[in-house]
């Protein structure tokens, strides 16, 4: 108690020294909270772009469809599957998948055609709010298509342009029709960017002469807290005759890349933490070393080495507690502000782009989580207490006669 009393007097009365140290800690803590929130937001946006944009969290296919995407290999009783999955707590949308050749003026290229129900798909993925030019699909306009950004460049088309689609219909006939480009997507993934062509399910059925069934059912959990593996197992048990996979199984490379990004960002975070930790360390070391003569006098008067060690540690704890509180008071609101108002890097990156198959937005949002707040504070305590051990031990062991005359 007496030691705590003395520690508090030292902290509160040495205003200059205390506030320099506390300011360094608060600044470091604030930066760490903001940076961790920003990285958390960036990672989450990467995952969202990879998952929510197109793949969805889970998918159901007819057996063998993924190995051999045959137009005829459909989930026949799709309505029943969707009904059961919805009852089990999933939001679902059916999709039709085919391929063909798109041409506009002198340009032509192979395309991956997706027939979707815009109303249902909008609830599962976010493609609808990722349109760069023009508008997203409408049930009312069956001859309108939305295409990937690079495909638009290859075909030299823009919203309002016409393109011809040619393919092999399910009845064996040659399918061909004229469509109007309704919208061009922002960058989604390499596959969608270069060859993605979206039309309504009705238009797809008419083009490919495929009256029933769907090739793919895309799902999202209503309860996000349910682990993905648990949701997958639950769905598999519900549809043992169909192929159920989650996005990590559907895109293992992407999943690994995200895991790797997570690890590399943690390393980056630690490096940043170490850098700001040095700032704290320096302030604390200076604070202790300039007091060596004072410690010498205290020891000469009978203050034991262990008490001196305890005093320095208690002073540090008090300073970190104040510093951490200030870091929270400044860092959390700052991060919350940037969770609504993004950092805009449009001046560096025009529109969204794709890196390693994942879409990137030039706007970065913070995401304030337990980890982005608690970890920096714990790190601050850890760094300060680790940093103080050496000078505290040195002060505790120093001979009073050397300390009193220390310059």
């Amino acid at each position, binding site marked *: 108690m*007496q030691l705590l009393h003395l520690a508090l*007097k*030292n902290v509160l*009365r*040495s205003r200059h020294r205390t506030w320099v140290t506390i300011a360094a800690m608060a600044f470091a803590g604030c930066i760490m909270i903001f940076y961790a929130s920003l990285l958390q937001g960036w990672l989450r946006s990467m995952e969202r772009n990879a998952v929510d944009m197109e793949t969805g969290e889970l998918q159901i296919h007819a057996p063998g469809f993924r190995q051999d995407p045959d137009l005829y290999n459909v989930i026949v009783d799709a309505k029943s599957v969707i009904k059961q999955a919805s009852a089990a707590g999933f939001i679902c949308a059916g999709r039709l998948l085919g391929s063909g050749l798109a041409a506009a003026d002198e340009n032509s290229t192979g395309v991956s055609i997706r027939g979707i129900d815009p109303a249902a798909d909008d609830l599962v993925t976010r493609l609808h709010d990722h349109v760069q030019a023009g508008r997203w699909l409408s049930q009312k306009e069956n001859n309108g298509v939305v295409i990937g950004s690079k495909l638009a460049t290859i075909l030299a088309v823009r919203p309002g342009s016409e393109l011809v689609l040619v393919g092999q219909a399910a009845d064996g006939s040659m399918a061909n029709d004229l469509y109007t480009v309704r919208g061009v997507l922002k960058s989604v993934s390499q596959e969608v960017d270069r060859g993605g062509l979206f039309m309504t399910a009705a238009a797809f059925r008419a083009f490919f002469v495929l009256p029933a069934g769907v090739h793919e059912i895309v799902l999202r959990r209503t309860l996000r807290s349910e682990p993905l593996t648990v949701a997958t197992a639950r769905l598999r048990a519900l549809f043992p005759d169909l192929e159920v996979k989650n996005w990590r199984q559907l895109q293992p490379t992407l999943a690994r890349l995200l895991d790797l990004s997570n690890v590399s960002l943690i390393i980056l975070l630690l490096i940043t933490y170490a850098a700001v930790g040095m700032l704290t360390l320096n302030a604390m070391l200076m604070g202790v070393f300039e007091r060596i*003569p*004072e410690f010498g*006098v*205290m*020891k*000469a*008067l*009978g*203050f*034991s*080495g262990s008490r001196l060690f305890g005093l320095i540690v208690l002073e540090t704890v008090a300073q970190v507690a104040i510093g951490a509180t200030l870091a929270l008071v400044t860092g959390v609101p700052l991060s919350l502000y940037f969770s609504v108002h993004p950092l805009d890097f449009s001046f560096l990156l025009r529109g969204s782009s794709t890196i390693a198959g994942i879409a990137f937005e030039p706007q970065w949002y913070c995401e304030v989580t337990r980890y982005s707040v608690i970890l920096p504070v714990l790190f601050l305590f850890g760094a300060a207490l680790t940093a103080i051990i050496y000078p505290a031990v040195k002060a505790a062991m120093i*001979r*009073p*006669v050397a300390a*009193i005359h220390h310059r």
Partner: protein
Amino acid sequence: MQDAPIVQLEKVSKIYQQGQVEVKAVDNFDLTVRAGEFSVLCGPSGSGKTTILNLIGALDAPSSGRVWLEGQNLAELNRGRLSRLRRDRIGFVFQSYNLIPVLTAFENAEFVLSLQNVPAAERRKRVMAVLREVGMADYVDRRPDELSGGQQQRIAIARAVVSEPAIVLADEPTANVDSEAADTILDLMTMLNREKGVTFLFSTHDQRVMDRARRLIRLRDGRLEADENQDR
């Protein structure tokens, strides 16, 4: 009957290593200080005065020889016991006052009693009594940087004597104060010695301090040059 010795030094030497050179600060030095003495170690700079005070005060250890304080051989005590010995039996007055900057005058004077776990009420009583004796009762809430050099040294004296130690070691106590403050400090120490029986051992080359001493221990090159009793 003569008082029992408080301090005894027996063939004490202290050698410092300065680079490749060995410097003998104290050379084969014997000394006995008895209770109630008002003694001065004097001599030119480098004659070993401060080193002897440091050895007696258990702030440093001799290279050879033995130091006893109240019959205890300091070489036989571990760090903890030396620390307690300094707390309970020795008072220090330093040349540069060395008050703890964040503590008030009262808290500085109270510091050793706090370490001894003396109850707060008794601490207050004893500290205030000593502060009145040194003429600093009106400055209890001032911090060292709000006090003059002479006032700081009076607080340092209060801190040294409040726990009623066996001996007060004062290293050049008048070196950093003006002559008026020096006289006040010396009056104070003389009074504490005469009226309270506090044993003082000074190191100094200030003639005013030497003039007040009842025993003058002259040093040269770490050796005893003369040990004179002065009638006062």
